[in-house]
Each structure stands twice: as structure tokens, then as C-alpha cells.
């Protein structure tokens, strides 16, 4: 039992040390130097190269947001900040800058407040990435099984009672870790939110240009993606309205 746990441990922790080449680090540094000199566009270009390689980190997204903001691409900066915030949901700098960037957005909505439980759940689910939650879920499940074994085979009544409680407890924890894992994937992998990048976009009542025009939203507005149908996506505005826009006009967070 113990050996199998160790093997599992190695299996899980291995990928963390496999990635990360040296190149992106120097690119990142070069970009920072350009930014400090005031060449924000140049910095953004270098950082974009890193992102194009499929690499990402909260710092990269945060810096790209800053550079985009400085050259006036407010909508893009919001997109980058949101991406960074997914990885570091409690970071003060990201929140502060996002707040400033948002103040440049034209559209103001009476947002429907989310249920605090849902908000908390999402916040907690973003504390770790989905991988982290998966590892924790697996470990808790393993612990639960070990405790169950102890309960089954222990002769002493005191031990039996203790292990039973612990089993139930760890099982509940494993289930919640699994839930958080799904919560995390819901926002990070499935990309259910997006930022409007084109200056103005018209929301239609149906996919395609045949529908009726419902509303006009402007760049920087954050919307929820509810459905995708080819070129068109169904979005939900912060005030709860729903419409179809072309998928090319948004950047998925």
C-alpha cells in the first residue's frame, strides 16, 4: 500500500519538473527591460513570443496586461489581467490594475450579483490549478481508502471509531477537492468567459446576420460564453441579457 502511494506521488510530481526551458526567462527579462525604458510595444511583442510558444505564467500575463494598457489597448489589457487573475485570484497588483483598466470601459452594467456561495466556490477553486486539485483529490481518496482498511482490520474498538470518522471525513474532503477540480476546469480549460476586443459589437438575436439586432457592446466588456455554434457564440452580458456575436470579436479568458 505504502509503496504504491509513493509511486503515485512520483507520477504526480514528475511533470512539474519537466517543463520550462531557459529561453522564455531571458525573453521575459528582455521584455521587462524594454518596458522600463518606455518601449511598451516592444516589450509586449517579446512577451507575446513567449505566450505564442504555449508557455504562460501569472507574471507574464500581468506584464502583458500592463504593456497593453500603456499602449492604449485597454481591452487587451483587461483580457491579460483576467487571465492572470485566474492563476492568482487573490493577487493585489492584478486586481488593482484590472480595476483601473476597467474604468476605461465604456459599457456599464447593473450586474446581477452572484450567489456568494458560488463566488466563494469559484475563488477557492482558483487557489490551485486544476492539476493541483486533481493531485489533492487523488491523495485524499487514497488516504480515505487507507483509513477504511485500518477500520476494517483493526481489532481495537478505539482505533475503529477513530478510523471510521477519519474515513468519512477524508472521503468528504476528496469529494470537495474533486468538485473544486471541476470548478477550476470550468473557468480555466473550458473558457466560459471572454472580453470583447473589437471597438463595438452588435449582439444579434440568432447566430448569423439574419437575426434582429439586440444591443451594442464595446471593447473591454467581460461576457460569459454560453454556447458556440461555428463562427458564432452565444454570450451573456453582466446584466443577464443574451445575444449572439461572432467569435472573432472576443478574446477568451
Amino acid at each position, binding site marked *: *500500500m505504502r509503496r*504504491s502511494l509513493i509511486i*503515485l506521488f512520483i*507520477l*504526480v510530481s*514528475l*511533470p512539474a519538473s519537466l*517543463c*520550462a526551458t531557459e529561453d*522564455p*526567462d531571458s525573453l*521575459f*527579462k528582455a521584455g*521587462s527591460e524594454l*518596458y522600463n525604458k518606455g518601449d511598451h510595444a516592444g516589450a509586449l511583442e517579446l512577451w507575446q513570443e*513567449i505566450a505564442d510558444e*504555449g*508557455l*504562460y*505564467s*501569472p*507574471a*507574464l500575463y*500581468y*506584464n502583458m496586461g*500592463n*504593456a497593453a*494598457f*500603456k499602449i492604449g489597448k485597454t481591452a487587451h489589457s483587461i483580457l491579460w489581467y483576467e487571465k492572470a487573475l485566474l492563476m492568482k485570484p487573490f493577487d493585489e*497588483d492584478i486586481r*488593482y*490594475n484590472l480595476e*483601473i*483598466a476597467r474604468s476605461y470601459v465604456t459599457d456599464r452594467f447593473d450586474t446581477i450579483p452572484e450567489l456568494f456561495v458560488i463566488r466563494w466556490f469559484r475563488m477557492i477553486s482558483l487557489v490551485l*490549478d*486544476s*492539476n493541483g486539485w*486533481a*493531485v489533492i*483529490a*487523488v491523495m485524499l*481518496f*487514497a488516504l480515505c*481508502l487507507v483509513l*477504511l*482498511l485500518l477500520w*476494517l*482490520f483493526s481489532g481495537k474498538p478505539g482505533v475503529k471509531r477513530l478510523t471510521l470518522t477519519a474515513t468519512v471525513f477524508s472521503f468528504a474532503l476528496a469529494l470537495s477537492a*474533486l468538485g473544486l*477540480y471541476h470548478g477550476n*476546469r470550468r473557468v480555466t*480549460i473550458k473558457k466560459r468567459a471572454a472580453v470583447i476586443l473589437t471597438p463595438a459589437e452588435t449582439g444579434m438575436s440568432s447566430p448569423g446576420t439574419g437575426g434582429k439586432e439586440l444591443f451594442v457592446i464595446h471593447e473591454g466588456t467581460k461576457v460569459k460564453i454560453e454556447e458556440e455554434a461555428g463562427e458564432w457564440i452565444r454570450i451573456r452580458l453582466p446584466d443577464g441579457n443574451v445575444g449572439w456575436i461572432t467569435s472573432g470579436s472576443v478574446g477568451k479568458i
Partner: protein
Amino acid sequence: MKILVSLLLLFILPVLTIAQDITVTVEAPGVVAVGEQFRVVWTVSSRGGSFTAPGFDDFYLLSGPQTSFSSSTSIINGKVTSEVKNSFTYYLQATRTGNFTLGPGIYTEGREDFSSKQVEIEVIESRDAAAARNNNQETAGAGAAVSDAGEEMFLRVLIDRNRVYMGEHIVATLKLYSESNLSGIRDYKFPDFSGFLKEDIETPQVTSLTRENVNGEIYGTAVLQRYLLFPQRTGTIEINPASLTVLVQERVRSNDPFFGDFFSSFNTVPRMISSDAVKITVQPLPAGAPASFSGAVGNFTLETFTDRDSVKVNDAITYTIRVAGNGNLRLIPAPDISLSPDIEAYEPKTASAIRTTTSGSEGSRTFEYLLIPRYHGNYNIPPFEFSWFDPDQKRYMTARSSASEIVVTKSDEEQEGTEIFGGRTGGDVRYLGSDIRHIWSDPGRFRIDGETMLSGNRLYLTLLVLLVLFFLIILLRREQIKRNADLARVRNRKAARIASNRFKVARTSLKNSDFRNFYSDLLNALWGYLGDKLAIPLSDLKKENVMTALLEKSGSEELTSTASDLIDICEYNRYAPSGGNDDPAKIYDMAVELIKRIEKKV
């Protein structure tokens, strides 16, 4: 009598006052035709001296001088203003064509000479003569061909140049030319000058026409209005035509063959005339404008100053920027000055002292900043830069003011105020602006897209593997327990037999009265039996363990205590001298009895 004196004084006074400031002006037509009679008048603002006219060598003096005198005195709010006009009029006739100069007329009073300006007079060929020369043959109906008044009459918009830089001034003059007499002008329609910033140049009211030679013809001209124009966009800008209606005096000829000319009368006829459109090319300013350029075109000087160098906290100080010169002064915006945030600066007070003349807008524009230092210390008002485009030199010029230093001392009030309350009243930190926070220098650990090891199915597969592992372990453990249970059963079955063998050994010792060995053997047999029977390994064979197991398996406390007592007795007698007091045979029986009971119960 008194009245007489004062009256006398009234008349003498103006003469006395004027005497100190004598002007001599001359009035003469600019252009005359050969044979024409004209008038030259010198006017002196004094009387009592003598006037000497210049020589009239180039002209024929018809008559003169005729002198006339007039004076007027006005007293307004006790201020005496008087005007004396002493004029000398000469009638001349031009004899030949050319440009002639009449020298200055000299007025001598006391020992001082006052002279007028020289006068230039242009004499041109008379139209009649020219016409006669040109059309010698057609002179027959000379009488009928007389005045076709109003034919030669036009309006012009004159501009001093038609190629300018953006923002450079142009002088536009609206001028009326007429050969005949006019009795009035009405219905002015001035161009709208779209594309220009227009400023009116003060133009005197038209009272009479000035004679002027235009291509050999004498015209009466009148400047109706002068404008200063500043182009507001580049490219070709057209000035719309101006138009107006003039009232022409036309001679109505009588049909009377004898007295026709003599009794002819004048009739006033309105005529509308308009000017041509004028095109002006506006060039854009050349590239390479300095950063401090804000659209000023012309020629300027810059001056900055403060009203004082040292001031107390919360006292005001005035900082003045003054731009003076010639150009589009009105368009110069209030400059931004960068000051320490501890100095409160108010919106500048802008004042313009601008004269609009034919040579452009001249004057100065002043920006006064009221500064109030809110904290003591030495402050610098940074040098201020002002740039403009000089159209004459065709390049940008920049002037830089010197930096001004202000020393701000603590105000007395502040010190007193703080001491009363026994501590400094600290203020909140003042925030000057907001910006996004700076970038992070640490890139952190880069992750790769789709890196997650335990995503989706793989996570559940892992959980399943764990579950399978779990059941496998349970299965193995069950198997092991079962095998162990079998082992125990064997030991259990054999326990009685092994015990009886050991009891035999004990009996032999009992027969030989070897009590010490007897107890040892007996204990050996008991321990061995209990270990086998209760499936307790040899290593765990302690009294407590055995007794607990026995109690658990038999469920009888009486039996357990009997076993416990028996073992205690055996242990005691084993080490007691001379084998103890108990009867060994009885103990042997008790042990046999105990085993029998255990066999039954367990």
C-alpha cells in the same frame, strides 16, 4: 469791465497755449492731369508768424496765397481744448507730365521754424488729350462722347501677398475706384473671409475720394475697409467677392440746342458693383516643429518674471509670462507650467494688449499665474520655453525664459497655531495621480498549455486504480487471516495433546518429589497450552495478554481468575524454599481440572 477782461483772456489764452506746439500740415492731390487746376493748402495751428511757401517751379501758379483763419475752443470738465486753423491756399496748374516734389512749407514764429512734409505730385497726361491722340479721326462728335459717367468704376480687394504660411497675416484692403463723383455708398456686402481669422484694421470713414493714378488714368479712390487676415487652414482659400451700391451723380443733358450745357442738371443713379474673387495660397508650416510649438507665427520675444522672490507660506505670488511681438498673438494659448505640487497654481489670467495695424497684430499677450506655496522651502519655477515660426526667416525659433527661484518661509501663524495644541498637525499624504502598478520582474514558473497530468479521464482512472488496489488489499488480507485462522485451529487441536505430554513430565517430577522441577514443568505445560489454545505467539506470551485473551474467548471471569490464581501459585511455589506449603498433588489436579474446563469452554 470784468467780463471784458475775461473775454479777452478767453481769446488770448488759446493762442498762448498752442504756441508751444505748432504743427504744419499740407494737403495736396496725389495725381493730377496736365492742364488741370488744383489746390495746395498748408494749415498751421498757430497765427502770428509768417509762412513761406516752397517754389512752384514745376507748376503754374494761378493764384495764392489765400489765407483764412478759424479757431475753436472747448472746455470740457475744466479742461481747455482749443484748435486754431491758419491756412494758406495756393491754386496751381500742372503744365507737363512727370513726378514732382513740392518742398516743405516753412512757418516762422519768433525765431523758430516749423516745416511741413514734402508733397509728391504725379502729373499724367490728361484723358482728353490721350483720347484725342489715340482717335484722331473720331474727334468729330466730341461733344456727344463726353462723360459716360459710371463706366469707369470698380471695386477691388487688394491683398499684400497671395502666398503665405499658415497663421501668417495678410492685409486685405477693400478699395473703391471711381472716375466720377459719388454722392454716397450703401448696401455694403463684405466678403465673409471664411478660412481666415479676421480682424478689422481701424479705417477712417470715407469722406472724400483720394486721387490716384491707375494705369495712366486718374481715379478717385476710397479705402472702405482694411482687414488683417490669419489663415486657419492650408491650401487655396478663395475670398468671396465684395459688392456694394454706389450713388453716382450723372449729368442729365438738356435737349435745348442753345442752352443745353448751361442748364444741364445732375441726377443720382444707384449702381451695384462688385469685386473679383481673390485666391490665396496657404502653405503648411514646415516639418520639424519644436515640442513647445503651439501655433504661434510671427516674431516674438518672451519674458517671464515674478513679482517677488521670497514669500511666506500661504501668501500669493504672481508669476507672469509675457509674449510680445507681431503675429497671431490672439491665438497663443496659455502655456502649461510644471510646478512643484506643493505650490497651488490657479488658472492664469490672460490679458492682451494688441493693436491691429497694416503691418500685423502688434502688442503683447500676458499670462498671469497666481501661485500660493503651501509648504515652506526653496522652489524653482522651471524655465519656460516658447516656440514660434518666423515666416521671414522660414524657420522655427525658440525662446527660453530663465528659471525663477522662490524662497518660501514658514508663516508666523502656522508656528503659533501648532504650538497651542502641543503638536504638529500632520496632513494626509497627498496623492498626485494614479497609474497602473509596475510590471513584475520575476517571471515565475512557466507552465505549458495542456500540461495537466491528471485531467479528465486520467484522474478517474487513477481513482479507479486506487479502488481496485483497495479491494485487492482487502482480498489479500482476508486470505491471510483465513490462513492464520487455520494455523490457530491446528494449534488449538494439538494443544490438549501437547499439554498432556507435558503433564506427564510434571507427574514424573511429582513422583520423584522433585517439587521445584514439578512446578517448572507444570508452568511450562500451562503456558504452552494457553499459547496454543488462544493462538498467542510465544513472543506475546505474557500473563496479562493471556488472561485478556482467555476472558475474551471463554467469557467466564471465574475461569480466568482460577487460571490466573493457579499460575500465581505455581510461580510462587517454584521459587519458594522447600517447595512451598501447598500440596503439589492437589495443584496438579487443579491444573488438570482447569485444562479440562478450558477445553470445554474455548
